[in-house]
């Protein structure tokens, strides 16, 4: 591997953790890079009425 000067990439092949959109992970996998994919999506906007209702039901 080319020495980039970045200690995180020096010597060892990178291992990537990708959060969210899995297209990024897939693109890296196609380049034989190990990727751990974390399924995540942004939480929906908060609805205070609904959260208050939820508090009373749980």
């Amino acid at each position, binding site marked *: 591997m080319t020495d980039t000067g970045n200690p995180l990439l020096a010597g060892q092949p990178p291992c990537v953790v990708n959060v969210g959109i899995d297209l990024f992970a897939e693109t890296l996998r196609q380049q034989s890079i190990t990727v751990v994919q974390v399924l995540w999506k942004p939480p*929906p906007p908060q609805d205070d009425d*609904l959260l208050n*209702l*939820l508090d*009373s*039901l749980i």
Partner: protein
Amino acid sequence: MTLPDKIAAANNEALSRFAAARPVWVDVRPAIDVLPGMTRATVLHAGPPIAWQDMCNPQKMGVVQAVLHEGLAETEAEAEQMILQGQIVVAPCHEYGAVGGMAGITSASSPLAVVHDPVHNRYGYSQLFQGPASGLLNRDEYNNEARKRWRWLETVLGPVLGAAIRSIPPIPVKPMIARALEMGDECHNRNSAGSAVILNAIALALYDTCTDRALLQETLAYLKVNEQFSLCLSMAAGKAMADSIKNIPYSTVVSAMCRNGVEFGIKVSGLGEQWFTAPANRIEGLYFSSEWGDADAVPDIGDSSIMETIGLGGHAQAAAPALQQFVNGSFARAVSTVQSMQLITVGQLMEFKIPTMDFIGVPAGIDIRKVVQQGITPVIDTAIAHCKGGVIGAGQTQAPEGCFTAALRAFGKAYQPS
């Protein structure tokens, strides 16, 4: 008892009814003979209620074809007039105790698998699959082929299967599902194992009761190629189980989940027969041929999500790693999906174990409170329908959040002290 305590007790009751149910396959009969309220002029469809003119194309087309098939009209134009004038009752399968895959078109003559749960005295009915009919993108050709297959189901498969099933003790459906999970099915998109188990269970009875060798040959040929056949029985059993949890006061557990290609609809045990709907999502998946793409596909459609309603399909994805090929996924992703479903359900159904996850029970009893709290909606494994008719692929999708938030608000109004 506080309100949350009452809800918890009601939800545990719902899960225990799922566990106590003993659905058995007892018969195959025409819809007109078995569905309460069915008439010659009724056509049932998959998903929540929808006006005919608002349906997606394959469902709209299917209703017209059913009217012609039943001999109620001579031409498509006449059939459409009758539908628009209200001479034909168009209603959801779910409201007649039945479920229908994909467009779910069920008319008076449609042969239905009949499943009975004697524990809760509930019946569930499911149409038989017409078999693969994709690749016929000429509308008239597709309709002719579909109606030819309907006729064959009515005149050959239904009577032959019915006679065989009535000649033997009822076939328990839950053990078939449990065995299929051990053999690599998740019992929604993959039913290869379950169908083999069923074929084994009925082969001798078919041989004994069908003396016409040509009809026996046709029936066995259908069962050989239709690897999804056991889904009809699982769906009918799922409907009987889901109906057994209807109307438990205070329960926030989902008692029905279905789609009509336009909207996704749910019912909630403690809220009776009220539907809560939101626009159906598109499906992430693989097309069976490179000639098809997203532009050809109808959004999520069919009553088969009754399987997720009782904890199978997307909820048991890790049991069927082979399916991950449809979504470019991995076993880790399947495990993660099951774990997500654990966060939104009441508990595990121990009769249905996932062998690849140290034999945990499938996560069952979708709790609308947890769905809203976690921001996670049920994952649905499903087939993909072409906008001109036919099945063209398979994959997975998620229930839209909107129906759960609407249901939770309605639950608050119904049960919160004012």
